[in-house]
C-alpha cells in the first residue's frame, strides 16, 4: 500500500472514529452517573439515522440533523423517566435486560415506521464532493467529521469541567451516595445525563447518514462497537472514549482498507481482550468503586427430592406418549420447546449458580448448529456423527470466551460476552463461502430413520432429557456447590483451596457445550440454519427464559423456556411485531416480578 493510500485509510479511520466517539461518550457518561449500561444506546443511534433520513427531504439536511438529535434526546429523557428511574435499585442483570427490551421495541418501531428496506440519506449540502489529498480523492464531508470529533470532545470536556452542572455530574460519577448526601437533586441529574447521552447518540447517527444507509441492523452493530470503545477507553471516562474511538476507528479503517472487512470485529475483539487482561478498567478508566453495603445474598438452590423426581418421571412418561395424541405441528413445537429448555438450563447453569450472566449464550447454540450443518454438508458426516461432534465446536468457543469472561464481572462480563457473540454472528453472516452468509445453510436433514417428526421428537426428548438431568445433577454435586461457593464469597472460596476462576471456566465451557448440543438438535429439526440462530436477540431470549422461571431456582428456567417458546409461537402467529411484544413482556416482567415467576410464586406461597 502506497503512502498516500495509507494516509487516506488513516483519515478514513479518523472520520469513522467520530460517530464511534459520539455513541461511546454518551454510553460512558450515562454509565458513570447511573451505573446502568444502556444496551439501547445503539438503538438511539439508529433512531437518529432514521429520523434524519425521514426529515431531510422536508427540512433540509442540517435542520434534520439538529431535529433528529433533539428528538432522540427527548426520547432518551422519556425512557429514563418512564423505565430506568424505577430500576436504579434493581440488580444489574435486570437493568441490562430492561434496556435490552427497549432495543427490541425500538427496532420494531423502526420497522413499523420506515419498513424493512435500507434507507439512503441525502448528502450534506456543500460537502457532497471530494477533495484531493496527496493525489487521491477524499470525501469533503469526512473532513468535516474529522474536525467535528475533537470539537465535540472539547465542548463536552468544557461542559463537564467548567459548569456547575458538569461538576455535579463528575461528583455523582465519583461517588453517587456522597453526592446524594450533599443534596444533589439526583432525579434531574439522571434525566439530564440520559438526555445528553441520547443527544450525542442521535447526533452521531444523524451525522453518519451521508456515509451509510439507515438500516435495522445498525443498532446492534453500533452498540457492540460502542462497548468495545468504552471497555478499551474505560467506562465513565470521556477522554478514554475519545482515545479508544480513535484506536478502534483506525483498526476498522485499516482492516477494511486491506480488504479484510470480515475480520474487523475479530480484530476489535482481540484489541478489547488484550486491554481487558492488561488493564481491566480500560486505558484511561479507574477501577469502579465497590458499592456500599453488603452484597446480595442469594437464596439456596432447590433440590429434586423423591416427590419431585417422581413428578418428573411422570412428566417424561406423558411426553413419551405425545406422538400418539398430537399432530405434526404440535410435535414440531414440542421439539422446539425441548431444545430451548436444554438451552435455557445450560445458560442457567453458569448464570445462576456460577453468577456469570452471559449476554451471548446464543453464540454456543449457533456454533453447535453451524457445526452440525457443516459436518453434514461439507464433511458429509452421517447425522449421528454430526450431532455428536458439533457440540465440540461450541465447547471450543465457550472455552475461548470463558477464559476472558471469568476474569471480569458484572457489566464488563455482559459486554464481553455480547461482543463475542456479535463476532461469531458476523463471521457466520459474512463468510459466504462456508456458512452461506445471510442466507445460511439449507438441506440440513437428518438420516432417514430420524426423518419423521415423531422419530425426531423422540430423539430430542431423549437427548434434552438426559442433558437437563446431567446439568441438574451436576448442580447438586460438588461441581455445582463449588460454583456457588465462588459466587457467594470469592475470598472465602480462595481461602479453602478453591480456584474460583478455574471452576467458573469449567462451568462456562460445560454450559457452552450443552448449548451446542441444543444447537445441533435445532439445526436438524429445522432442516436449515441462518445467522439468526446465533444473533444477539436469541441470546436475550435465553436470558428471558431463565429470568421468567427464576434465576435462583433449579427447575424454573426449564419452565421459563416452555412458557417463552409457547408464547413466542402464539405471538408470532397472531402479532406482526412480536419482537416488540416480547420486549414489552420483558419490561413488565422486570418491573413487576424482579425475582422471576417461579421465584415470585415461591415467595408468595412459601409462607
Amino acid at each position, binding site marked *: 500500500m502506497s503512502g498516500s493510500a495509507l494516509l487516506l485509510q488513516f483519515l478514513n479511520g479518523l472520520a469513522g472514529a467520530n460517530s464511534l466517539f459520539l455513541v461511546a461518550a454518551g454510553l460512558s457518561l450515562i454509565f458513570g452517573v447511573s451505573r446502568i449500561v444502556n444496551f439501547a444506546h445503539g438503538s438511539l443511534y439508529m433512531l437518529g439515522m432514521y429520523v434524519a433520513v425521514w426529515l431531510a427531504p422536508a427540512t433540509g439536511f442540517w435542520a434534520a440533523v439538529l431535529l433528529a438529535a433533539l428528538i432522540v434526546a427527548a426520547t432518551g429523557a422519556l425512557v429514563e423517566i418512564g423505565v430506568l428511574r424505577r430500576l436504579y435499585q434493581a440488580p444489574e442483570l435486570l437493568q441490562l435486560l430492561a434496556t435490552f427490551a427497549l432495543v427490541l421495541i425500538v427496532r420494531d418501531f423502526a420497522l413499523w415506521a420506515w419498513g424493512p428496506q435500507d434507507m439512503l440519506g441525502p448528502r450534506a449540502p456543500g460537502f457532497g464532493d471530494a477533495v484531493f489529498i496527496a493525489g487521491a480523492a477524499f470525501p469533503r464531508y469526512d473532513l468535516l467529521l474529522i474536525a467535528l470529533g475533537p470539537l465535540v470532545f472539547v465542548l463536552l470536556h468544557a461542559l463537564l469541567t467548567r459548569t456547575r452542572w458538569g461538576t455535579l455530574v463528575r461528583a455523582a460519577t465519583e461517588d453517587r451516595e456522597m453526592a446524594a448526601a450533599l443534596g444533589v437533586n439526583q432525579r434531574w441529574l439522571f434525566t439530564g445525563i440520559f438526555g445528553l447521552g441520547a443527544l450525542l447518540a442521535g447526533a452521531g447517527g444523524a451525522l453518519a447518514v451521508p456515509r451509510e444507509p439507515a438500516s435495522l441492523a445498525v443498532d446492534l452493530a453500533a452498540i457492540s462497537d460502542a462497548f468495545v470503545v468504552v471497555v478499551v477507553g474505560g467506562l465513565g471516562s470521556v477522554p478514554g472514549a475519545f482515545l479508544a474511538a480513535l484506536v478502534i476507528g483506525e483498526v476498522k479503517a485499516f482492516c477494511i482498507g486491506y480488504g479484510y472487512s470480515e475480520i474487523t470485529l475479530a480484530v476489535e475483539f482481540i484489541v478489547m481482550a488484550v486491554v481487558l487482561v492488561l488493564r481491566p478498567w480500560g486505558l484511561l478508566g479507574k477501577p469502579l468503586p465497590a458499592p456500599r453495603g453488603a452484597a446480595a*445474598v*442469594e*437464596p*439456596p*438452590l432447590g*433440590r429434586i427430592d423423591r416427590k419431585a423426581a417422581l413428578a418428573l418421571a411422570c412428566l417424561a412418561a406423558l411426553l413419551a406418549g405425545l406422538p400418539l395424541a398430537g399432530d405434526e405441528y404440535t410435535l414440531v413445537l414440542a421439539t422446539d420447546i425441548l431444545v430451548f429448555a436444554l438451552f435455557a438450563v445450560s445458560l442457567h447453569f453458569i448464570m445462576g449458580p456460577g453468577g456469570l450472566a452471559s449476554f451471548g449464550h446464543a453464540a454456543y447454540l449457533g456454533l453447535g448448529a453451524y457445526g452440525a450443518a457443516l459436518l453434514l454438508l461439507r464433511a458429509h458426516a452421517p447425522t449421528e456423527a454430526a450431532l455428536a461432534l458439533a457440540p465440540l465446536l461450541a465447547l471450543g468457543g465457550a472455552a475461548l470466551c470463558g477464559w476472558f469472561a471469568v476474569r471480569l464481572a458484572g457489566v464488563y462480563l455482559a459486554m464481553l460476552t455480547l461482543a463475542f457473540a456479535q463476532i461469531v454472528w458476523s463471521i457466520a453472516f459474512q463468510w459466504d463461502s462456508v456458512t452461506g452468509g445471510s442466507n445460511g445453510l439449507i438441506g440440513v436433514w437428518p438420516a432417514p430413520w430420524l426423518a419423521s417428526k415423531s422419530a425426531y421428537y423422540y430423539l430430542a426428548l431423549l437427548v434434552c432429557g438426559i442433558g437437563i438431568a*446431567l446439568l441438574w*445433577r*451436576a448442580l*447438586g*454435586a*460438588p*461441581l*455445582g*456447590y*463449588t460454583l*456457588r*461457593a465462588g*459466587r*457467594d*464469597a470469592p*475470598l*472465602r*472460596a*480462595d*481461602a*479453602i*483451596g*478453591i*480456584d474460583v476462576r478455574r*471452576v467458573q471456566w*469449567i462451568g462456562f465451557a460445560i454450559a457452552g457445550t450443552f448449548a451446542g448440543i441444543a444447537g445441533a438438535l435445532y439445526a436438524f429439526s429445522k432442516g436449515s440454519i441462518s445467522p439468526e440462530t446465533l444473533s444477539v436477540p436469541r441470546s436475550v431470549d435465553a436470558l428471558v427464559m431463565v429470568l421468567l422461571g427464576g434465576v*435462583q431456582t433449579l427447575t424454573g428456567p426449564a419452565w421459563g423456556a416452555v412458557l417463552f417458546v409457547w408464547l413466542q409461537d402464539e405471538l408470532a402467529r397472531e402479532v406482526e411485531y412480536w419482537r416488540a411484544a416480547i420486549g414489552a413482556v420483558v419490561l413488565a416482567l422486570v418491573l413487576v416480578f424482579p425475582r422471576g415467576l417461579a421465584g415470585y410464586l415461591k415467595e408468595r406461597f412459601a409462607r
Partner: protein
Amino acid sequence: MTALVVQGLTKSYGGVQALRGVSFSVSTGELVAIIGPNGAGKTTCFNLLNGQLAPDAGDITLDGRSLVGRAPRDIWRLGVGRTFQITATFGSMSVRENVQMALVSRERRLYAPFAAFPRLYAAEADALLERVGMLEQAARPCALLAYGDLKRVELAIALANRPRLLLMDEPTAGMASEERGALIALARALAKTDGIAVLFTEHDMEIVFGHADRVLVLHAGELIAVGAPEVVRVDARVQELYLGAP
C-alpha cells in the same frame, strides 16, 4: 516446636509503609495475639500470611516451607486456615454445607460432577460443628445466622483441613462480651489438643491479656514489643503507645 517463622516482612502501598521488617514466630499449640492501634498493619500482616497480598521483602515459612509467592488456595493446602474480620461464608448454603465445602476441597473432589454433595463427609462436618458448638444449627441457611454464630462456622471451616496454623482476624468483633471469652477459650482448647499454632488480632485487651500465650505489639508497621502478656503489659513503649507519654 516452631510452626510459623516470619522474617523481615515488608509491605508498602504506594508511599505508605504498612509493614517494615517484621519478624516473629509462632509455635505449635501456642496462642499468639497481634495488637496495635488501627492502621498499625495487623490486617496487612494477615493478608500477607495467607497469600492475599504479596510481600515486598521478607520470608514466611510454615514447617520450613516458604509461603511467599503462593496463592491463598495453595497456602490453605499447606495447612493455613483463616477466619475473616468481616465474616465470609457461603450465604446460599446451610451451615453443614459450608463445612462440607471445605472438606470436599480438602479431598480434592471440587469438580466431581455426579456425586451427591449433601451426603459427602456429612458426618465429619457434623463432628466439626459439634466441636464449635454449632451442631444444633447445622441445617440452617448461613444467611440467617447471628454474627457470633457465623464466627463459629468460620472456625469450623478453618479447622476442616486440620490446619497447622490458624489465622483469626478479629475473631470476637461484633460479639457480645460473654460470647467473646467463650470463643477464644474454644480456640485455645483446639490449639492445645490438636497442636495448632494460632495467631489472632484483637481489640479487646481483656481477651488478649486473659488468653494469649504471647503478645506482639505493632505500631506504624513496626514490631515494638514481643513477649508474655505480663511482660508486654509493663513494657515502657507499649505503655506510652496506649496510655500516652508518662
